[in-house]
């Protein structure tokens, strides 16, 4: 086994494509990002997950006996769509990051002047212009729904609103980083399963309202650290520089500390 591993490593080294050095050009990344955004929003995994989230919440609301006013109905629907957006973002970002590997375009792209970071950066831009922008629209709709209902108005504030797009970005960054390092379509679903079924999502919530007693600055730092770590890891796949790994490691430490410190005394 050691011999075959050594042979595989030797072959991989012999066939390695010498990358173009340098920074990606902003107009190029922007142009590619627009293509990626469209593809992410129209990808079946994103559409199906969003639709599934809507139906799930619709069904859940139905079991509660109905009788909701317009604001409550809208809040439920937006909430359902957002659950779908969270799941769909992980999947669609993962697929976008995997595309080059799955379609065997490395050699073709390797002979082009744009550095490999252009393609990774474009997926992140696509994530911002696609799922994150969509989540902003949903959050604005939810904010409006919360505001027109006196009972709900108190629980909506800027802190809560900002967490939604940040969470979508963080989940998309996870999908991209996993796609860059784990060359299989199972990566996305496994991330979601690990998140939900190992309880990470409940122990360290992505979104909490002010009323939960969460430490708001630390929670925001936690979200930013998660985004930074996964983004640095995604780019480290293009070029394994010490700086990229150091940023990922520092963000990981910060994220863990903030995750521990954000919880209110006695738990949520």
């Amino acid at each position, binding site marked *: 086994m050691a011999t075959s591993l050594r042979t595989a490593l030797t072959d991989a080294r012999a066939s390695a494509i*010498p990358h173009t050095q340098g920074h990606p050009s902003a107009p190029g990344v922007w142009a590619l990002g627009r293509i990626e955004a469209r593809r992410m929003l129209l990808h079946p995994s994103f559409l199906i997950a969003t639709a599934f989230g809507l139906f799930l919440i619709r069904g859940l609301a139905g079991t509660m006996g109905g009788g909701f006013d317009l604001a409550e109905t809208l809040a439920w629907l937006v909430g359902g769509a957002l659950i779908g957006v969270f799941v769909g973002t992980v999947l669609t970002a993962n697929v976008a990051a995997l595309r080059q590997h799955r379609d065997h375009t490395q050699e073709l*792209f390797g002979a082009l002047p744009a550095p490999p970071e252009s393609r990774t950066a474009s997926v992140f831009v696509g994530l911002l212009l696609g799922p994150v922008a969509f989540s902003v629209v949903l959050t604005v709709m939810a904010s409006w729904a919360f505001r027109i209902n006196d009972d709900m108005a108190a629980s909506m504030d800027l802190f809560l609103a900002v967490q939604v797009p940040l969470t979508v970005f963080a989940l998309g960054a996870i999908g991209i980083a996993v796609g860059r390092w784990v060359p299989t379509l199972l990566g996305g679903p496994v991330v979601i399963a690990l998140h939900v079924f190992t309880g990470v999502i409940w122990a360290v919530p992505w979104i909490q309202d002010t009323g939960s007693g969460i430490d708001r600055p630390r929670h925001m730092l936690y979200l930013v650290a998660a985004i930074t770590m996964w983004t640095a890891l995604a780019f480290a796949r293009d070029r394994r520089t010490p700086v990229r790994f150091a940023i990922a490691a520092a963000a990981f430490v910060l994220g863990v500390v903030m995750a521990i410190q954000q919880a209110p005394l006695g738990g949520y």
Partner: protein
Amino acid sequence: MSAPTVEITDVRKDFGRTKALAGLSFDAPAGITGLLGPNGAGKTTLLRMAATVLAPDAGQIRLLGWDPSISDERLAIRRRLGYMPQEPGFHRSFTAFEFVDYIAILKEMTERSSRHEEVRRVLTLVGLEGVMDRKIKALSGGMRRRVALAQALLGDPELLILDEPTAGLDPEQRLRFREIVSERAGDRTVVLSTHQTEDVAALCPRVVVMLDGAALFDGTPNELSDVATGRVWLASERSPQARLSWRTPDGTHRHIGDAPDGADLVPPTLEDGYLLLVGERAFGQDEAA
């Protein structure tokens, strides 16, 4: 004669125990250079090096006057290069237009309207104007080859590297391909590999035959044909004396090698020269073994 665009000097490349290139020296000036050789001769390895996607273990490479092992110079080469790999991957869920457009952006064509115009131009050039909005997964193998050719032609590159560009193309498309490439030749440099000796005869003023990672022949197609002058025969029966022989559609047997009894000497083709050259080396190896 102009200075060579591609200069490869004593280049070696191993993949594990396999010697892909064994001290190959090769150069290609402006114009079309065709590479012929059996499978495993090292053609693709050579073209991958000329396309900057593979580094040699030893030896020197200069492309368009630059050294691809130096980062800045590699970028300068890639800005002037069009490459069609032997097995180009495609984003199958993209349309032909979207895919070539995607590559155009990676080729630093960022201005949208001029880029789209260029994408339409190259797709039209390869005869895909009617299917540019069709997804690549719905295109035939030949159409996909043409998408690959179209992306290589983006920006009218100074150096065009084409690895088996006519594989899977129908006769009409092969003719069209020859037209496209010969129009571009002029002051540009095209290096292509193929198994189709007719393509080389029709397109390439210069041909290099490769075997076992080295150049076995370097000359014009006529010179390659001349290798077999006086050694191609037609006879009514298959002869054991011939190194290679096959039955032609009119029922006679074409022999390459020593004259069988009662055979008629015929003028050689480029394919005869190639077969004799490659076959002789192969026979020589057999005899040595």
